[in-house]
């Protein structure tokens, strides 16, 4: 066919080059959020828990997203932490949940068991696999094997060491819980029946008792509930040892308050009544600005494991397709590299691998230790019965801390009270 237009080599190269260029740009675009434009106007509600540093970042994200997507309106709401769990669960049960919800791992069970959550779209699952720090997908699938949303905050418990005290005492950071117990014994000073200094001090009050002990329990290779979630599984030899370890590391007279009383705690540290170790990343949020801290990752005993009460973005299953699309688009935006950097800037653990290439995070060996710990984390347990189970743990472990009963008796009591709850 002589009339047929032939493509010249020059044009062929031009078109091929353009295709490659588009592919490269599109590929690169995966790293950078591209505004999605839902076909019609959409109004989304977004429920977050009260925590001013991250609330500001999330609110900025929402405002920026709305600027990029004028057809999407997002109503950003905040609830205090003690109330938000019940409100989330009740709103889902009642059929009127927010469209985007920040949900901590142990409430997820209440939403996963009755299948109230929308599984994350494939693109989000791929993003978690490819872009998030190693271990994140495992963390995201611990509820029932399905990814319901990306993490937006890693709450990982690993010891934090006061470098000044470590160096002054010529101590090496312990690698096992038993080593930490030994160091604690060496460092603890009791005068007139009162603890004046301790090597390590957990916060032995309220829910922190359960949260902290469960991390130790995991390192001892045990779990709170059996795999079928029908019985208490921690009343074992190792379980008893884990509680003994935990109890010996509680000094309630020295450290009776939660992190909420940071101010007093800081003064105490500066005054010289010191601990060598704390847990969690809150140190980076500013309560101890004059202290030098270091984190080295989870301690092991029988396993190198710790617990995490990670927060996830989730979307209700019952939403319309249009709203779902918009909600996942917002979440995609909130977990893009720029937003991750913003969270890192206020002291959270950056969640994306590429954030760790930024010099400011690369050099932050303290925060990096938390990100590197993700593969060693196991979620803080979650079942719809968890609040009652946790309450029993707090009460009985609390009695052991107060020396009313032995750790062995505490675990026996836990078993007797928890089994009827989960049966």
């Amino acid at each position, binding site marked *: 066919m002589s009339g047929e237009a032939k493509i010249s080599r020059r044009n062929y190269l031009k078109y091929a080059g353009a295709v490659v260029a588009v592919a490269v740009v599109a590929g690169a675009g995966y790293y950078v959020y591209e505004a999605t434009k839902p076909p019609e106007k959409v109004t989304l509600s977004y429920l977050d828990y009260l925590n001013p540093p991250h609330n500001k970042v999330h609110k900025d994200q929402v405002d920026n997203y709305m600027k990029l997507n004028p057809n999407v309106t997002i109503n950003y709401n905040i609830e205090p932490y003690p109330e938000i769990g019940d409100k989330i669960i009740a709103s889902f049960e009642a059929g009127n949940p927010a469209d985007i919800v920040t949900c901590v791992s142990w409430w997820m069970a209440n939403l996963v068991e009755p299948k109230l959550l929308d599984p994350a779209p494939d693109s989000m699952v791929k993003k978690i696999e490819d872009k998030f720090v190693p271990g994140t997908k495992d963390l995201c699938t611990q509820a029932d094997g399905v990814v319901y949303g990306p993490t937006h905050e890693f709450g990982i418990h690993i010891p934090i060491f006061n470098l000044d005290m470590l160096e002054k005492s010529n101590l090496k950071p312990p690698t096992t819980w038993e080593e930490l117990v030994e160091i604690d014994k060496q460092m603890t000073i009791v005068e007139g029946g009162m603890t004046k200094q301790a090597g390590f001090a957990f916060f032995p009050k309220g829910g922190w008792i359960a949260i902290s002990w469960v991390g130790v329990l995991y390192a001892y290779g045990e779990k709170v509930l059996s795999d079928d979630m029908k019985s208490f599984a921690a009343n074992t030899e190792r379980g008893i040892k884990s509680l003994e370890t935990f109890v010996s590391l509680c000094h309630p*007279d020295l450290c*009776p308050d939660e992190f909420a009383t940071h101010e007093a705690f800081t003064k105490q540290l500066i*005054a010289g009544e010191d601990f060598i170790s704390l847990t969690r990343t809150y140190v980076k949020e500013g309560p101890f600005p004059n202290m030098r801290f270091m984190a080295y990752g989870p301690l092991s005993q029988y396993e190198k494991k710790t617990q995490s009460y990670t927060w996830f973005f989730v979307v209700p299953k019952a939403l319309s397709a249009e709203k779902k699309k918009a909600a996942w688009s917002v979440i995609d935006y909130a977990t893009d590299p720029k937003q991750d950097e913003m969270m890192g800037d206020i002291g959270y653990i950056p969640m994306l691998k590429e954030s760790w290439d930024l010099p400011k995070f690369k050099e932050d060996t303290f925060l990096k230790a938390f990100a590197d710990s993700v593969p060693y984390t196991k979620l803080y347990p979650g079942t719809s019965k968890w609040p*009652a189970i946790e309450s029993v743990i*707090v009460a009985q472990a*609390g009695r052991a801390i107060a020396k*009313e009963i032995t750790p062995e008796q505490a675990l026996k009591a836990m078993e007797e009270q928890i089994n009827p709850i989960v049966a």
Partner: protein
Amino acid sequence: MKFTDRTVFIAVAIGIPITWLIAFRLYPIVYSAYLSFNTYYLLSGQVTFRGLSNYVSLFNDSLFRVSLLNTIYISLGLGMVGVWIALGLAMALRSVKNPRIQTIYRTIIFIPAVTMMVATAQAWTWMFQPSYGVINYLLSLIGLGPFKWLTSPSEVIPAVIITTLWKTLGFTVVLFEAGLAGIPEGFYEASEIDGATKWQQFKHITWPLLTPATIFVFVTGLAAALQTFTQVYVMTMGGPGTSAYTLVFYVYQRAFTYKDLGYASAVAYVTFLIIFVASYLQLRYIKEKLWA
């Protein structure tokens, strides 16, 4: 029948509070009585009839026993100590002759009564801190302590009692002051002429004539003490362990932590029964012994 503006106004004026009373008082009372015979887990929506088993379970419930004993301990502590301190303060206030200074003292004493319990409890939590708390510091100046307060199972209830005393004392003082103001000065003047001592005046004039105020203070004080919750929740969360559990705290735990509204309702009804019986016996005793 013709509705005038007046009848409409009366109907609305009465109807609103009655509706409120039914919706937020009577209905919950009746519904919780119904729930106490059932199993009802919040959020599950399923109500299963269990007869008296919630009430029977209470007898074998060690946490209920602990909560009951702690509640009695707090009530007795407040009753035994608080009433006498309040009476002493009221009498001391009455003895201040300068009305302006009297008002200043009265205001100082009454301020805690109008302070929120949450704020009070939080402030006392810090003051009771064993290492840096001001209470241990002050006690150390007179050679006492250190005490572990909220971190010790044996010292936590006294700490709760002290906090509650501080908060409630002002109101009790005002009640006693009102009672004292009602005693005619002439009685004291006549007794002075007869050579009565201050103690005799207190024993034979002040105390008997204060009986109505005393009854009111004891009955309302006991009812309030038996409902101790906020200070325990804020200061200790029931701990260490379970050593500060009170009946109302236990009701809260069962209802909103365990989400077990049936059992929580049973505990609430037993608590109500205890308050009712204790108040009745107290009233009878005081009337018979003091007002006879």
